[in-house]
């Protein structure tokens, strides 16, 4: 059994009274594309910085490929980071930026230029080596940052909100490219994001952070289909959270449930389904679908109606059904 790429054992990072990271356990497998997802201030970025070595834990142990790294400075760790603002050195050319790590290692000028050019072609920026970062677009800078990190052949690549500064179209394109790059290189990727679509689209596994703790770790399907807590259900994909009292009112089995909006059907459904009557309270147009908040008296459910189904106005009666299998029991 090989040791995990990154292992956290009860790792804490407290800033005075603020528990940025609080007793986090974590194991990231070698070659995994791992996402740390959470709202801002949830501790995900601090965790990334703990792996990079920019922060030191106030408690617990961190291992990278089986080696303890507490007290090891960033420049002696086999990890490299792609920064949120890319952090390209403005006074160096693109090629010099990419070759920086090799220059520090003492690689001679010719071989490092060669390696830099190789890396630039890997990120599809051949011929850009002699430009300055200021002459590049946001997407190109991001690729340079990626090349600059990868040239050092890190065991783990850390990405801090890698796509946050890009516009939607570029973001979707880069998601695909990052994924295929990771697949080709076989390097462990750990990336931090607050965007659940990004995490679900790219990661092999997702850790959801809240208030300095990991609340759930699992495959994107597990996180999305079977959230364990109210927080995960709400943060990832905005599921309906049905409290025990509401469950009783709606004729659901006893317990705390989450229910994905897209699993609620219009009309009667099959024999097993739970049928409900309500009124459309708010209809939000979203292009391919409409998001409808249905008022059920004491409770509200959000459902999604695909485009093409006849529109209904606010205040109109809605008959809906919830398949029993769509209900996910949560812990609280």
């Amino acid at each position, binding site marked *: 059994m090989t040791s995990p790429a990154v292992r956290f054992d009860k790792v804490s990072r407290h800033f005075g009274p603020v528990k940025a990271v609080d007793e986090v356990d974590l194991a990231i497998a070698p070659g995994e594309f791992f996402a740390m997802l959470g709202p801002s201030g949830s501790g995900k970025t601090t965790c990334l910085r703990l792996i*990079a*070595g*920019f922060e030191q834990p106030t408690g617990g142990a961190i291992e990278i490929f089986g080696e303890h790294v507490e007290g090891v*400075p*960033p*420049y002696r760790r086999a*990890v*490299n*980071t792609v*920064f*949120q*603002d890319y*952090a*390209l*050195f*403005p*006074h160096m050319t693109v090629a010099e930026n990419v070759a*920086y*790590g090799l*220059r*520090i*290692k003492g690689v001679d000028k010719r071989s490092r230029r060669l390696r830099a050019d190789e890396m630039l072609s890997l990120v599809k920026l051949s011929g850009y080596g002699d430009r300055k970062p200021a002459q590049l677009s946001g997407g190109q800078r991001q690729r340079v940052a990626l090349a*600059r*990190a990868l040239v*050092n052949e890190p065991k783990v690549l850390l990405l801090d909100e890698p796509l946050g500064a890009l516009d939607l179209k570029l973001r979707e394109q880069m998601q695909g490219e990052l994924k295929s790059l990771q697949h080709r290189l076989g390097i462990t990727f750990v990336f931090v994001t607050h965007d659940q679509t990004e995490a679900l689209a790219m990661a092999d596994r997702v850790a959801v952070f809240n208030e300095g703790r990991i609340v759930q770790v699992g495959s994107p399907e597990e996180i999305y289909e079977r959230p364990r807590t109210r927080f995960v259900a709400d943060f990832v994909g905005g599921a309906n959270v049905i409290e025990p009292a509401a469950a009783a009112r709606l004729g659901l089995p006893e317990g705390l449930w989450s229910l994905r909006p897209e699993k609620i059907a219009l009309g009667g459904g099959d024999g097993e389904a739970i049928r409900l009557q309500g009124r459309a309270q708010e209809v939000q147009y979203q292009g391919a679908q409409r998001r409808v908040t249905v008022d059920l008296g004491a409770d509200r459910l959000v459902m999604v109606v695909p485009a093409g189904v006849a529109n209904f106005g606010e205040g109109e009666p809605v008959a809906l059904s919830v398949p029993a299998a769509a209900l996910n029991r949560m812990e609280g």
Partner: protein
Amino acid sequence: MSERASFLLKLMAGAGLLFLHLPLAFIVLYAFSTEEKSYQFPPPGYTTRWFAVAWERQDIWAALTLSVQVALIATALALVLGTLAAGALARTRFFGREAISLLIVLPIALPGIVTGISLRSAFAIADIPFSFWTIVLGHATFCIVVVYNNAVARLRRTSPSLIEASMDLGADSFQTFRHVVLPNLATSLLAGGMLAFALSFDEVIVTTFTAGQQTTLPIWMLTELIRPRQRPVTNVVAVFVMAVTFIPILAAYYLTRDTADVAGSGK
């Protein structure tokens, strides 16, 4: 109506600039005057002999040498201390940070005479005799400020993740300073250094209190004004001082033009 107002404004602005800079033209003019006792206008004749006379005067060379040495060493001292202070104060937050920042910048706001008197009494209390180094110390107080102001402005605009990126890529603190921090500061330090040199080179007030019997070039000029003869020689030296201080200030302006951080250049 607006055309007229604009013309009037131009006229006023022109008059203001003329008032500021015309005296400089007179300095240059009188450097060539044949009249050596008074500032007679127009000069009765023109000659370049005062440049030759100035060249021969040993006291001028001595004063010039002292001024250049003081300015160079004060600037070097300011570059090191100003950069270190900027590095410490640019991004960190600690108790008393604002107070320290104010204390560093204070000498440039303080009247030179106050700095001069306080330094003089401090030297007297500590029983330090006047020397080359007392002048350097006096000048360093305000030279540090211009270097600090330039460096701190640049550091504040430099992304903190640059330093982390460098360390992430394998560079230790020293390598990071050498390959990332210093190159980013270079133009602002050059600008700050040149301003510091220019400030030190023509400083009179603080120098009078810290020089003792030594004569820097500006002090030499001040004493020379009282002498009845060879007045144009002083003007020749003044022209030289103008050139020496004007060029670095102009260069500093161009170096930091697009970054707008030549700060504290107004002593």
